[in-house]
């Protein structure tokens, strides 16, 4: 383990050193370095700092093609928001206020907020402590635990929910939602924190200890401070995931804004009520993102420098070893064992039921087709937006990038209805209920995930290579294809995997846009689950887990290697 890590570090260090040297070969090493540093500052959202002349000059040189591509991508992304505003303006502000100001809204708001607060706090605690134990202590079997605690990432929330709720009626309502969602999404905190801990500079901790500060206080004041950005980034993802979740809460009988939006579509023939509620959700999502940006702007960098990466001394667990091991076993058992075990149990004990449905193979193929296509589309679309926001950073391009995150808070069903609306009104129903429109809906809903991955990778890739390419007379597109894209290839792979993972379980948009007669794994699972045909639902759950395992492994490897500077930013 140690040997491998050291080798990896060495590679990383060589890489960084290589970039430096390459910079030296061009005439303006200092300028290139400064520019990178300035861009980094700009990325971190400290708007108060005036943009330097260098970055202004850069932003003036935005290639028109890139700008058009970026604006086009974001325009498509904002279509659902435009749809919501169109619906709202159709009924008038007073009527929208009336639709929102219903007796149920207060309880939905309470349900949504208390769940977000409790689950986010639990995930932060579990994710951070687990990451610290794996990365910084002499926990026996660290390598195995490092994989096992991340695997739940591959299990869809509604499968976790199904696994628990089908076994025990205790798992329902608020307590059920807290339990299920904590177990389903804590890896969103664990992954970035583990990456940040690995690359954090241990010198600060050592200095603190040598100055006589105790272990606990050092942990609280130094270690937590170093990974703060990663913890917060993970928490925002957890909060957004909770806002958008539908399937898990439907199974648990827990009502949030998202489940109610779907109910509004189901019972009242009333797209307007659903749209009004969705606007509330968009506001909540924007608040989460704004909080993130505000806190992050004040944050400290996670380490003193890119070369200060070395193995930290591992803390001895001592007498705590057994309880910690038991805690890890419990976590993995609850998050991984119960959903998988429960699905396997139902395969054998579920009995035979009357719904025919489609075959696993057919549903699996369509799931892979839709999710794979959406992943490809998103990854391609994320490149221009990431390039604009990092390589040509100014307020406009950063706003362009930020605004794309809003779609995370818009439920899939709203994205679907928006596409139906625009397709019917402006394209004569073009592509309606066809694969391309469904793929587009998937791509819109999951675009921020691709952007996060591509952006993190691009932020780490030195701009000087691109400048060398340009100075050698290469055209912009050639530089993009031959320099930039190979540099960010791991980020592209992570983007593909993340979007694939997120869309494999998509349910609400799929039900509306899927071609007639076709089922995905998720829709077929849902149809069986709704009919309480657990025996037939379970194989679909297991195939979903299987199909999600590969990309989630890729994603976790990606976070393993990505230095904290990149991960700490958005994810």
């Amino acid at each position, binding site marked *: 383990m140690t040997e491998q890590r050291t080798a990896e570090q060495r*590679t990383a*260090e*060589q*890489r*960084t*050193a*290589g*970039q*430096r*040297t390459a910079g030296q070969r061009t005439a303006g090493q200092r300028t290139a*370095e400064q520019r990178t540093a300035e861009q*980094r500052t700009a990325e971190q959202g*400290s708007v108060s700092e005036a943009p330097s002349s260098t970055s202004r000059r850069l932003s003036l040189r935005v290639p028109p093609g890139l700008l058009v591509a970026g604006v086009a991508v974001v325009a498509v992304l904002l279509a659902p928001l435009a749809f919501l505003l169109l619906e709202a303006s159709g009924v008038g502000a007073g009527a929208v206020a009336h639709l929102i100001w*219903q*007796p*149920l809204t207060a309880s939905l708001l309470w349900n949504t907020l208390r769940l977000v607060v409790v689950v986010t706090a639990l995930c932060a605690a579990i994710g951070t402590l687990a990451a610290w134990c794996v990365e910084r202590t002499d926990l026996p079997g660290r390598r195995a635990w490092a994989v096992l605690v991340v695997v739940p990432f591959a299990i869809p929330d509604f499968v976790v929910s199904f696994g628990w709720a089908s076994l025990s009626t205790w798992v*329902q309502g608020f307590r059920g939602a807290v339990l299920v969602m904590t177990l389903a999404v804590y890896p969103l905190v664990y992954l970035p924190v583990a990456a940040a801990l690995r690359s954090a500079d241990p010198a600060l901790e050592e200095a603190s200890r040598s100055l006589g500060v105790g272990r606990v206080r050092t942990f609280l004041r130094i270690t937590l401070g170093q990974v703060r950005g990663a913890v917060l980034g993970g928490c925002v993802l957890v909060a957004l995931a909770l806002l958008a979740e539908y399937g898990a809460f439907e199974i648990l*009988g*827990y009502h949030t804004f998202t489940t109610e939006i779907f*109910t509004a579509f*189901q*019972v*009242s*023939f*009333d797209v307007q009520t659903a749209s009004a509620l969705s606007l509330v959700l968009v506001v909540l999502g924007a608040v989460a993102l704004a909080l993130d940006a505000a806190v992050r702007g004040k944050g*400290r*960098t996670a380490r*003193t*420098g*890119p*070369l200060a990466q070395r193995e930290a001394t591992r803390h001895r667990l001592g007498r705590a070893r057994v309880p910690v091991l038991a805690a890890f076993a419990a976590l993995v058992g609850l998050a991984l064992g119960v959903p998988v075990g429960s699905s396997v149990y139902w395969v054998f004990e579920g*009995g035979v039921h*009357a*719904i*025919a449905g489609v075959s696993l193979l057919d549903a699996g193929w369509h799931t892979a*087709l839709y999710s*794979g*296509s959406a992943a*490809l589309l998103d990854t391609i679309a994320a490149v221009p937006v990431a390039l604009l926001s990092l390589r040509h950073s100014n307020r406009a391009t950063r706003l362009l990038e930020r605004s794309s995150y809003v779609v995370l808070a818009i439920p899939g069903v709203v994205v679907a209805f928006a596409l*139906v609306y625009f397709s019917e009104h402006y394209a004569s*129903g073009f*592509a*309606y*209920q*066809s*694969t*391309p429109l469904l793929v587009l809906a998937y791509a819109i809903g999951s675009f921020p995930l691709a952007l996060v991955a591509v952006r993190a990778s691009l932020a780490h890739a030195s701009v000087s290579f691109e400048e060398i390419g340009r100075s050698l007379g290469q055209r912009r597109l050639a530089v993009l294809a031959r320099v930039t894209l190979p540099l960010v*290839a*791991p980020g592209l*792979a992570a983007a*593909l995997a993340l979007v694939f993972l997120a869309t494999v379980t998509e349910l609400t948009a799929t*039900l*509306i846009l899927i*071609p*007639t*007669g076709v089922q995905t794994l998720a829709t077929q699972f849902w149809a069986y689950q*709704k*009919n*309480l045909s657990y025996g037939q639902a379970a194989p679909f759950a297991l195939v979903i887990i299987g199909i999600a395992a590969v990309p989630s492994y*890729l994603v976790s490897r990606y976070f393993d290697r990505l230095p904290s500077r990149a991960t700490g930013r958005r994810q």
Partner: protein
Amino acid sequence: MGRVDAQATFRGSGGPLPSRPRQSRPARCGHRGPIRAGVLVAVAAALGVALGACGSASSPGSRQSITLYSGQHQQTTDALVAGFEKETGITVNVRSGTEDTLADQIVAEGARSPADVIYAENSPALEHLQSKGLLAKVDAGTLAKTPRNYDSPAGDWVGVSARVSVLVYNPALISRRELPTSVLQLANPRYKGKLAFAAAETDFQPIVTAVDRAYGRTATLSWLEGIKANVAGFTHTYTTDETITNDVNRGEVAFGVINQYYWYRLRAEIGRSNVHSRIAYFAPHDPGYVIDVSGAAVLESSAHKAAAQRFLAYMVSKSGQDVIAASRSFSFEYPIDSGVTTKAPELPFDRLRPCHITVGELGDGRSAVALLTEAGLL
């Protein structure tokens, strides 16, 4: 912050590390290459096939086909479609969903809706589409097959099957004598913590409409508030009749309001020996004793009206009604044709004593939704 980073960078670049820029990168790519390339190739192949597939999907052959939007249970729809395809040779493409979502979708699709036929679990969804002028007249011969009071008042849709709202109860938790006989008693505080109902189920709305018609808006509202108080202590909210039936059966809650076929469906799924619950009817002509009609309609926008009308004709024909009555369709509804009888439900259709609300009075369910919303249940 940026300054600190930059200084650190400078300090770092002066370090004693070897400078071999071109060697470290290929090594890294080589390590990741196979996985990445594999993913890319797979995805590219998937996309290629996807585009190819949509190009060819438009010509499924010379066989005639219609598209059915079905809000009915999948098993029932599948059994009817299989019978129809066998009898006529016309292919039916089925799109299953929740009836109201499908109705929303047809409204959004407008004149370009791909649907030829809509098959709904309840009449309000059909009345809603009718009020928007989206339904075509049903052939007179088809309407003549069924009792008039279970068809669209305007002749725009035809009733196919019917069922009735009942109570499901667990005798271990509540005795039959303790059960309410009138739907109004559901608001009685003595049932606090014992009653389960799903406000979001389309099957519950007709009861609200019936109570509204019998007792007026104000009384209905306070009744709903009483019901809400009775379920207030629950840890979770029921969203479907399936989960209510299941939870009553396994003793999680004492009794609930459902449509009777859910109880028969559960019995068929889990076997008679696992059934620990029973069903009970409200008092004759009580507003809670509502007949819900499941029906079908041809869309005005349909380009295959003749074939679509044949599907409707098949649904109410002897063979179609036999499918509803047969256990393989998992329907457990009453065939609308009085000539066809069922073994389950056991109580014959003509011995039901429902309240006297008509499908016209049930309307599109909007007033019920408004009442449920005002009471804070939706």
